């Protein structure tokens, strides 16, 4: 599904160059439930953005569903994003002047689905996430957990192969965090690959696979030992 080979990424700020990702190798298969951990500034969000084609990388190769993702045009990237990827952000990123249903339906607009049909589908997804009666509410009338569920519905509506979640529980209390994780777990049960970036250990431990970006920008898989460590404590 996802093949990263020796990915490098650095940010240029004035005269300084900040080398964030130093040769990342990563393989994620269809249906995996993966978390990527790391301390602040370790480059985990950068990695997720590269995975989601929101950002480009300097060196290496990235294959998504067998396609090489490299120096592609904005238009093509947009098409891939629309077809393959659903995003869930820490700050929800709902469009403030659209109600819940319209927000959820928006990806289908870019797929060319007619208005009535996409609003119907959006209602289905909202119902699945228990937000049917909130369909006509604006984002600022909803709680953080509700907003994140709307965002998940929006990510799911285009039936993507991968859900990329950037700190999906970062702005939520622990109870709602667990609710959101339950939802993502169910999404994964339907066969969709879910990749979560987080710095919270308890959130990461709910996934099947944990990768940690350690200080030198390398990736390490340590799910088993980590869970055992938690159990000992």
């Amino acid at each position, binding site marked *: 599904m996802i093949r990263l080979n020796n990915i490098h990424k650095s940010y240029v700020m004035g005269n300084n160059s900040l080398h964030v990702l130093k040769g990342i190798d990563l393989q994620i298969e269809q249906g995996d439930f993966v978390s990527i951990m790391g301390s602040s500034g370790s480059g985990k969000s950068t990695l997720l*953005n590269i995975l989601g084609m929101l950002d480009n990388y300097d060196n290496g190769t990235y294959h998504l569903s067998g396609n090489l993702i490299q120096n592609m045009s904005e*238009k093509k990237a947009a098409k891939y994003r629309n077809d393959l990827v659903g995003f869930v952000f820490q700050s929800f*990123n709902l469009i403030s002047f659209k109600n819940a249903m319209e927000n959820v339906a928006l*990806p289908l*607009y*870019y797929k060319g689905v007619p208005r009535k049909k996409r609003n119907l589908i959006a209602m289905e997804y909202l119902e699945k996430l228990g937000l049917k009666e909130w369909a006509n509410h604006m984002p600022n009338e909803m709680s953080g957990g509700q907003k994140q569920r709307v965002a998940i519905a929006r990510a799911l509506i285009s039936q993507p192969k991968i859900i990329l979640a950037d700190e999906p529980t970062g702005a939520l209390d622990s109870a709602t965090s667990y609710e959101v994780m339950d939802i993502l777990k169910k999404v994964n049960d339907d066969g969709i690959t879910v990749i979560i970036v987080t710095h919270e250990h308890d959130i990461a431990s709910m996934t099947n696979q944990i990768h940690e970006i350690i200080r030198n920008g390398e990736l390490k898989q340590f799910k088993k030992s980590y869970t055992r460590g938690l159990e000992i404590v």
Partner: protein
Amino acid sequence: MFDIDKWQEILATIKKNKMRTFLTGFSVAWGIFMLMILLGSGNGLSNGVAANFMNDAVNAMWIWTGETTIPYEGMKTGRPIRFQNQDQEIVQKVPGVGVSSGRYFMGNTRYSYLKESGEYTTITCQPELKDVENLILNEGRFINQIDILQKRQVVVIGSDSKTALFKDSVALGEFVNINKVPFKVVGICTEPGSTRNRNAYMPLSTAQMIFNGSNRLHNLALTIDASTLEESQAIEDQIRNALGRQHKFDPKDEGAIGLYNKLENYIQTMKIFQAIKIFIWIIGIGTLIAGIVGVSNIMLIVVKERTKEIGIRKAIGASPASVIGLILLESIMITTLAGYIGLVLGTGLMELVNYFMMQSAGPATDQSETIFLNPTVDINIAVYATLLLIVAGAIAGYIPAKRAASIKPIVALRDE
């Protein structure tokens, strides 16, 4: 382009962002509205003054006599100049002179019909005067050449005099006594731009014979064929030279004969109006530029404000072209609609002003002097001005929209 869904998306965005829509629309509508009022007022003023000139033939000229003020060929100043019938023939021979008529004023003459009587000015003239002064015949005819040749005792009276003397009865064919001499009424006329139609016109030859005018003329009225100021001044100089030779005065002597050249006046006034029009256009263009700057400003803010939204849209699969299209079509739609509203309001107001002026002027509109007439704007100019604003709004929106659409979605998403 004509994707209904796209328009629905745009309409939904407009509906939810009323303030932004209003501000963009207002600056366009206001610009067009002000332009319409400015140009309309300018046109109204220009049309009004032009119409006043049309009361007489635009190319009319009047010549009257005075006393010499410059010594000439040994003769002292203060010598009175008198026109005689042959002076008209001399003037008529000057190239560029159209029609001409000699005039002999009789001052207040007493008109009586049955028991009614009144004193009116009698102008004795030739048939050509009708063309010089644009006289309007309400009934009957004007003095004709046969009247002149046969020295007929006929008269054309002003419409007010007719009412005073004849009341409601028919005047044509009746005889009025003028200074106790009977004259047959052959026509009733009005003068354009006059509210007192009390002048009477009678054949020059008849008047000179009956009222002892011999061959004297008081003044000459004529039309000239000239299209420029220079041409009309050349004709004026030739007339002065010809009359100067006849009466032995310096052609430069402004006192010997007086001369009023309507064309010269008309051309000069129109020049002033051209200057006023240029001035109005400068202000109008200034207003348009203010509108363009306003639209550009708002579009810049709109794009800035929507950066995050653009990021979200791109993250869920919007192509850069669709993002630019969304912003541009919205801006074009708002500016077009607002431009149209400004156009309708502006022309509507000018039409209203026009209507009320016509109302207050009443039935005397043809007669009275008006300074403001038909204050409307060429619809092409209005449409071009609106198009200009739409294009300006589109360009002003395109540049930042393109920039916003081409930045990485991740950067746009970070924008708070």
